[in-house]
């Protein structure tokens, strides 16, 4: 990687926001170690270590937001949110609407997500589809460090609850820590990511705006996070094999950029969703629905996690979306077999 990895990028954006806004603080397990750059800069009153009590400290984040702060609550892995989900669904996301908008809850949850490095089922989920179903909750899952930083700035300025998902395969920090990528002989399917020019002062990336990463033709591939890089690589291979693909990085899961989704799909002949979350009842379905509602009827396929993510490298690769799976699915979709 040339610029900072996604974790460092988010840390930098947070630092920039924290120095501009005294009300922002960070709460989470192990944050003194994980966020040591923030700790040394802002001190333990604003980088607050928490016991392994997600319900209590996520709930405290909600209460702090009600009290006038703008907390960032770290849930180490998104899988662990399920021990505390209630504070998000029934409090953070409901107080705004049930007060008829009089009491916003400006809180950002930050969590690592995603698999592909052998931690299996309980640590490798994406879960953005499930979370995007919570009304009023903003969910983002960026694919590049610059987008991650820019979206962080937007979420920290947003007057509602949000979740920033940081895919572990895009994070040098997490991959070193969890997967021991420094070990010889270890090889995970970490995608190549394109270099980025890193600005002196970070700029917000608007919430709810997808971006077209490659615009070529027949098949529109919608994806996000690691999936975008897989889709880009698949598109290169497919080009050589004679199929042209457009790749759209959704960046924000909810609110979904319906305009771009419909616009791009409307100009393509087939639609495909590459999603590291579970296939059924999630993002891929939502895309199908907004297209159908808009009367855009195209051959449709999805490459998503096919179930609980297993441990062994080969089994894991079968379950998660991979470049070969995408290539094969696109060719099936356009009738090249």
């Amino acid at each position, binding site marked *: 990687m040339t610029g900072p990895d996604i974790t460092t990028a988010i840390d930098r954006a947070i630092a920039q926001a924290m120095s501009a806004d005294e*009300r922002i*603080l960070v709460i989470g397990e192990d944050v003194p170690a994980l966020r040591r750059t923030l700790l040394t800069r802002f001190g333990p*009153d604003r980088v*607050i270590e*928490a*016991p392994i*009590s997600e*319900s*209590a*400290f*996520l*709930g*405290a*984040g*909600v*209460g*702090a*937001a*009600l*009290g*006038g*702060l703008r*907390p960032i609550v770290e849930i180490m892995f998104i899988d662990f949110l399920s021990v*505390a989900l*209630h*504070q998000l669904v*029934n*409090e953070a996301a*409901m*107080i705004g*609407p*049930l*007060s*008829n908008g*009089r*009491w916003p809850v400006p809180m950002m949850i930050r969590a690592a997500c995603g698999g592909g490095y052998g931690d299996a089922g309980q640590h490798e989920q994406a879960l953005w589809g499930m979370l995007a179903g919570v009304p009023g909750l903003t969910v983002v899952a960026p694919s590049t460090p610059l987008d991650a930083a820019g979206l962080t700035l937007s979420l920290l300025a947003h007057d509602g609850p949000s979740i920033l998902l940081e895919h572990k395969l895009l994070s040098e920090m997490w991959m070193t820590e969890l997967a021991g990528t420094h070990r010889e002989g270890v090889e995970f399917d970490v995608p190549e990511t394109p270099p980025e020019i890193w600005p002196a002062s970070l700029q917000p990336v608007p919430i709810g705006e997808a971006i077209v990463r490659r615009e070529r033709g027949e098949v529109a591939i919608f994806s996000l996070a690691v999936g975008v890089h897989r889709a880009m690589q698949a598109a290169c291979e497919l080009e050589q094999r004679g199929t042209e693909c457009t790749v759209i990085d959704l960046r924000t899961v909810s609110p979904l950029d319906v305009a771009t989704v419909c616009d791009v799909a409307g100009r393509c002949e087939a639609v495909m969703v590459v999603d590291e979350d579970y296939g059924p009842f999630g993002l891929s379905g939502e895309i199908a629905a907004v297209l159908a509602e808009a009367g855009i009827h195209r051959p449709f396929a999805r490459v998503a996690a096919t179930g609980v993510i297993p441990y062994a490298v080969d089994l894991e690769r079968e379950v998660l979306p991979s470049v070969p799976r995408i290539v094969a699915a696109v060719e099936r979709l356009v009738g090249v077999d």
Partner: protein
Amino acid sequence: MSDGPDLEALFSLMVRMRAFEESLASLWRRGLVSGEMHLGVGEEGVVAGVLDHLTDRDGLALDYRPTPALLAHGVSPGSIVLEVLGHHDGLNSGHGGHMHLFSPELLATSTGIVGSTAPLACGLALAARRLRPGSIAVGFFGDGAVNQGMVMEAWNLACVWQLPVVFVCKDNQWAATTRTDRLTAGSIAGRARSFGLNTRVADGTDVEAVWRAAKPLVDDARIGEPGILIARCRRPSGHMLDDTLSRTVRNPADLLRMTRESMTDQPGLSAVRHMAGLTGTIAKAIGDRWLPHRDPLRTAARRLGDRAEALERAARAGLQRDVDGALARAGVAS
């Protein structure tokens, strides 16, 4: 200035609370209010004795019996009446209803999820410490809620973060149809003390006792020493208006009718044995409802002697004016 509470003021406040709950009950019974209705009848001593120590810069995390505390904290009764009527001029424009009453100005939130108030109070306390030094947050919950993990987590969090928070456990000995002593191991106070929380137990039916117990807890919280008040009280109107237990208490024969079906193919004796726990519970529920001497209002009135009647009349009249005003605005007969 004396060191003790102003019993007249507390009594008047409690009367307002009671009268308000009675108004809500009547609106509910008249079919003008949707959904469940949980009242704070019986809790007035606890709420008044605690809230008297707070200012409007202190935050409140309230459960699904939030009305007494909201009144004490300064929310207008009329706006609550309009809210439970579903009126667009209600406290939350009719979006929240009685379990979700929010006053951002007075930093008061409420929730229908058991135990949720404890973490929320911790967060309000964190904000208080940073943004309004010297102010605190108070989180109310019931005795059943102490078995909800997030409550215990919050106790720990309050202690290790040294939060300016006071928890208040309104111990009415019931959680819906369940006697909590059967399902709570150890004592609530012992459990709270094991975290190092500043712990006090008070008779919640005696507002002065509550006031005295709450004072040092609130004072200590203001300097970052969290505490908890555990106050015994009563629940004479049941878990919610017209709930199973209330209906069964009114008509115990119901129970037999409802279980007859399962008795037919069952040796009658074992069914009766199995039902023993349940009938015991119901007997207890009957006993608990007819103990008027545990009423915090009566206790205070007795102490006030002659003065009580006039105070009560004035408080009720004042409250009624507010309620009537709201009803008129909503076009509902008083």
